[in-house]
């Protein structure tokens, strides 16, 4: 049976070239980068090379980039660190309703510790309204955190515009660019952001390694305390092979950016066209224009996402859902809620994300199977267009 992975936004396989770079750092070149002797120094050099590679992809200086264990840790560091650093100045944070849980749950933690958080609504296309941001700012606002690209519906936010508003008011601006990295061009200077989170496993690098960009001059409390690693800003023996892998993945992502975007957006558009022409009562969630090149978030009315997901899985197809039923929490996608998708439709939503290893044949196979699956499940369903809910 054909195996088709269409969940590249969840995670990506490590590319062979990336793994090849990593391997020696597990065994021969395993020295602790903090050690003074030769094999330690060689590890240190490998880390600095990777830092250059990753910094280049976002047009940052090497000194502005600090490796973390994940995008999640980078998000936690940014918001908890800023809250701690700036607590004398204020206790108000602005973010959005569509952030990743790494941001939302960090904010909830802060709310339990004396901070106030405004969660901005987004427009039906998933984009933040700059006027809404302006209106939310108070004298006590110390941080604005708005994601660059949403992980569920793929919406690209107007970060440059939003960061400019923050700058004008002298407020720190963070963006979660985990989904943006490698999928949209990123230039931290041009964007004008102060802090930015990224992660390797979304760009064909390894899991368990991320980074936080901290603009030169920005003060931020440490989050993980201990040894003097990462210029004394992030403690813990460095994940040497992980960092090397992130570096190589970033280099490849930079080289391939244009072709990658052209390829996957072409495939994605083809896929959406096929599905919407072959299946009725399907809607595309989120802006078509400002969108992650590989993302197709679709609502199939009258059926439930988990059922579709499992049927597709049996046909070798891997996708994800915004449905409550497929997550440990059973609460329906907060992102689809925020853009106004009715709860019953949220249950019928699937996220397909196309990536570098996807082929047109894969998609043709998925379309065929999906038509079958949707028909089958709609047949079983107690709801339909004619009958209503």
């Amino acid at each position, binding site marked *: 049976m054909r195996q088709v992975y269409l969940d590249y936004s969840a995670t990506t396989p490590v590319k062979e070239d990336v793994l090849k770079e990593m391997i020696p750092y597990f065994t021969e070149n395993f020295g602790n980068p903090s050690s*003074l*002797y*030769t094999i330690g*120094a060689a590890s*240190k*050099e490998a880390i600095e090379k990777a830092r250059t590679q990753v910094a280049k992809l976002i047009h940052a200086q090497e000194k502005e980039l600090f490796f973390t264990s994940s995008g999640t840790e980078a998000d936690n560091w940014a918001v908890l660190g800023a809250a701690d650093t700036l607590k004398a100045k204020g206790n108000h944070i602005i973010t959005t309703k569509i952030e990743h849980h790494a941001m939302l749950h960090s904010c909830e933690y802060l709310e339990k510790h004396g901070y106030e958080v405004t969660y901005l609504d987004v427009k039906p296309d998933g984009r933040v309204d700059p006027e809404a941001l302006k209106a939310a700012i108070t004298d006590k606002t110390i941080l604005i955190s708005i994601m660059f690209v949403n992980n569920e519906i793929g919406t690209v936010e107007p970060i440059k515009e939003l960061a400019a508003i923050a700058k004008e008011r002298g407020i720190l601006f963070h963006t979660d660019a985990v989904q943006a990295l490698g999928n949209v061009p990123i230039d931290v200077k041009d964007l004008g952001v102060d802090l930015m989170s990224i992660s390797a496993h979304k760009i064909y690098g390894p899991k368990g390694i991320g980074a936080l960009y901290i603009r030169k001059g920005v003060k931020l409390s440490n989050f993980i305390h201990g040894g003097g690693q990462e210029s004394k800003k992030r403690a813990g023996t460095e994940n040497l092979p992980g960092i090397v892998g992130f570096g190589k993945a970033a280099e490849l992502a930079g080289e391939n950016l244009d072709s990658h975007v052209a390829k996957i957006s072409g495939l994605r558009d083809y896929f959406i066209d096929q599905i919407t022409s072959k299946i009725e009562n399907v809607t595309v969630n989120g802006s078509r224009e400002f969108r992650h090149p590989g993302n197709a978030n679709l609502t199939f009315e009258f059926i439930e996402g988990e059922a579709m997901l499992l049927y597709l899985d049996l046909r070798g197809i891997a996708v994800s859902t915004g449905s409550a039923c497929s997550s440990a929490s059973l609460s329906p996608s907060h992102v689809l809620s925020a853009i106004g998708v009715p709860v019953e439709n949220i249950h019928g939503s699937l996220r397909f994300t196309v990536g570098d290893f996807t082929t047109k044949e894969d998609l043709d196979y998925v379309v065929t199977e999906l038509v079958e699956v949707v028909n089958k499940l709609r047949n079983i369903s107690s709801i339909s267009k004619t009958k209503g809910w």
Partner: protein
Amino acid sequence: MAMYNDKVMDHFMNPHNVGELENADGSGTYGSPVCGDMMKIDIKVEDDVIKDAKFKTFGCGSAIASSSVATDMIIGLTVDEALAVTNKQIINELGGLPAIKIHCSVLADHAIKSAIYDYAQKNGKSYKGLEGFDPDADEDDHHDSCEVE
């Protein structure tokens, strides 16, 4: 070794002028084992020219290399010229030192002054470069700086 350049490593591995001079004309010690660095310099002076110098140093790679290159530098200089040698020149001569190791070259520069001070005391001489130089007072400064960082 990425930490030190080749020239530093060479002076560190094969230091010049190691030892002590019998019947030294001047002898100075600077630093403190507590800080991890202590240097002793002996000098031989003839007609106001430093004819020979030897050192002994307890310290890191940078301290040993600085001692080696500093003694090389002052041999053949007049006392006044030797007094004018700065730690910056020592660092330049070594082709640079890591930022956190800069203080180790200060050690050599002070030890030279201490040795000349001793020579001046013994021979009733006075040099412009020694004005305001107090070997003991400075030692406290150095001690402070080694404790803070």
